[in-house]
């Protein structure tokens, strides 16, 4: 047998080691790239889900629900966005401020350690005037026939979720002697000018310009309308909102309209919810129903079973004292819940101007 002296085996071994080392280096680099890409994708997904959670919370803003939040409470919702998930919290942080924050997580790099991104959104109630403390507030002359009703509260519209508030009064007038109504028509306390607290009518007067500037609907002179809530989600933005909670799936329950009628208005039947600001004479008739706050710079006439659930603020028009005349089973029922829902549910709640959105991390 011939002994062979050679280095083939050694060469093959060395080559194998070199190739293995190169392969390992290439694989490590590829894994690092994949980890980096996955982490970046995960961060993007987490951010997108957090942002979407905030947008959903804002678009699904429920006025009465948020009005019922006590300061310092937070509601929590979990939203899922495919490979990512976000926890959304809506916190009422003070009387006029809410903070919507969402933290999203998605599987990222580094052995699928979750990547987290957070977004915050600040929401502000742009009106600071207080909820009226009576069904009718103002330096007005009030007359009512025996079938009419002016009711203190707290009225709770059927099916509404309402915060606990002190029962409001029936009337808060500058001069109680100017109430002309048979016994039993005014149910609740009648406060005079010496009542404690700020002059509510004056505070609403001061907000008039700011609110009318934010009106969703501006009507022409002496218009007669029969408002409808909107029949489909697509038409809610043109309607006056659905005040009835009899059907919890009705499309326009979260629509709270702000209507400005600069030169008189007649509501002939129909229904709506929100804020109604009228300069001149507001006539409610033919079973018209409005839930929320009505501010009249002039005079109010209720007839034909018309009903306001919330409050009416009467302001002088060009120096003339305002008046309210109710007849034919028309009524005004004090409901702070309805007023709060209208304030917090409509366009008066908005994103903090200039920079409400914050990418937190």
């Amino acid at each position: 047998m011939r002994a062979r002296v050679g280095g083939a085996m050694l060469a093959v071994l060395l080559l194998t080691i070199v190739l293995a080392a190169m392969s390992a280096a290439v694989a490590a680099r590829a894994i690092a790239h994949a980890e980096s890409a996955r982490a970046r994708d995960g961060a993007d997904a987490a951010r997108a889900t957090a942002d979407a959670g905030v947008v959903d919370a804002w678009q699904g803003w429920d006025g009465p629900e948020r009005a019922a939040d006590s300061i310092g409470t937070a509601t929590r919702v979990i939203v899922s966005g495919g490979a990512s998930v976000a926890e959304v919290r809506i916190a009422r942080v003070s009387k006029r401020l809410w903070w919507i924050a969402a933290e999203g997580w998605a599987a990222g790099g580094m052995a699928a350690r979750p990547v987290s991104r957070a977004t915050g959104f600040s929401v502000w109630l742009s009106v600071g005037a207080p909820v009226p403390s009576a069904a009718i507030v103002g330096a007005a002359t009030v007359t009512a026939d025996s079938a009419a009703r002016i009711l203190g509260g707290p009225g709770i519209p059927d099916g509404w979720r309402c915060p606990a508030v002190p029962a409001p009064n029936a009337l808060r007038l500058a001069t109680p002697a100017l109430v002309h109504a048979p016994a039993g028509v005014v149910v609740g306390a009648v406060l005079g000018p010496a009542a404690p607290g700020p002059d509510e009518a004056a505070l609403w007067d001061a907000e008039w310009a700011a609110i009318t500037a934010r009106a969703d609907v501006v009507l022409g002179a002496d218009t007669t309308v029969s408002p409808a809530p909107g029949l489909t989600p697509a038409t809610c933005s043109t309607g006056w909102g659905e005040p009835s909670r009899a059907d919890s799936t009705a499309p326009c329950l979260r629509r709270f309209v702000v209507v400005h009628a600069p030169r008189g208005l007649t509501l002939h039947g129909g229904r709506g919810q929100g804020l109604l600001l009228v300069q001149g004479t507001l006539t409610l008739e033919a079973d018209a129903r409005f839930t929320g706050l009505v501010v009249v710079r002039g005079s109010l006439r209720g007839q034909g079973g018309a009903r306001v659930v919330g409050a009416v603020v009467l302001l002088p028009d060009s120096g003339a004292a305002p008046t309210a005349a109710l007849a034919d089973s028309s009524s005004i029922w004090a409901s702070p819940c309805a007023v709060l829902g209208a304030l917090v549910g409509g366009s008066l709640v908005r994103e903090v101007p200039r920079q409400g959105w914050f990418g937190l991390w």
Partner: protein
Amino acid sequence: MSVVHQVRPGFTLAESLVALVLSALVVVAVGALELRQGTAAGTALARAAARAQLAAARAALEGELAAVMHGESRLMVVHDTLLELDAHVGMALSCRPAAAGARTLIVTAHGAAGALPTSGWLRAAAPGDSVAVFDPSNGRWESATLVSVATGSCSPGVLAGPGRLLALAAPGTPVPVPEGAPVVVHRHVRWTSYRAADGRWYLGVREQTSGAWASVQPVAGPLDASAGQPRPFALLDDAGVPLAPGAPIALGSRLEVVLDMADAVPADRVPLVVPVRRRP
């Protein structure tokens, strides 16, 4: 008598010459290969370093540009070699009510309010920063100047937890600050391409604290200076057409940042583009 020829193992002269020539060829080939590999490895290393620099620059710029896109930072000047902005330092929520004229403001810090995210900081707040506080009574942002930052404690409630105490210069908070009011901190910042002591060009950032501009801090580099001073910044109109350097900044225009690192290949050159969402 027979003659025995002894067979000796070995190579002939010709064989040895051939082997020598072949060996020489192999050595030359291996040497050339090694040289090429060394050059390629050097290029790859340089490219890897350039990519790492690019990644660092992107990471630093992304937060800044996201703040521009969200309207949290305000663009002031866009020149091809300079980007000046009223930059977002961070935001938090006021977590203790403060009276008008108060010289301190306590805001949420990370970890406040449990699982509710309430603050985010792109950079650390520093004296001289501008503090804006939202006033819900009139819907305006009111300004004050930061003097110092210390630890504080939030009120019990939904924002309870650790806080940061912001000391403000006189006259203090212009308005009463309710709990939950957003508080935003800004600082003047300049991003620029600059030549360092080694003669090479870098991307750097300068920040204004206490009214004075700090020295430029390198962020990434060296930049490709084959065509002179690198020009990483551009303002594009809404159609994507570059505007003249120093052109007025308008809503709807877009900020483009392109970093050309020395030793990087064109494939690594990815422009960052963000829309301008806030009027200067």
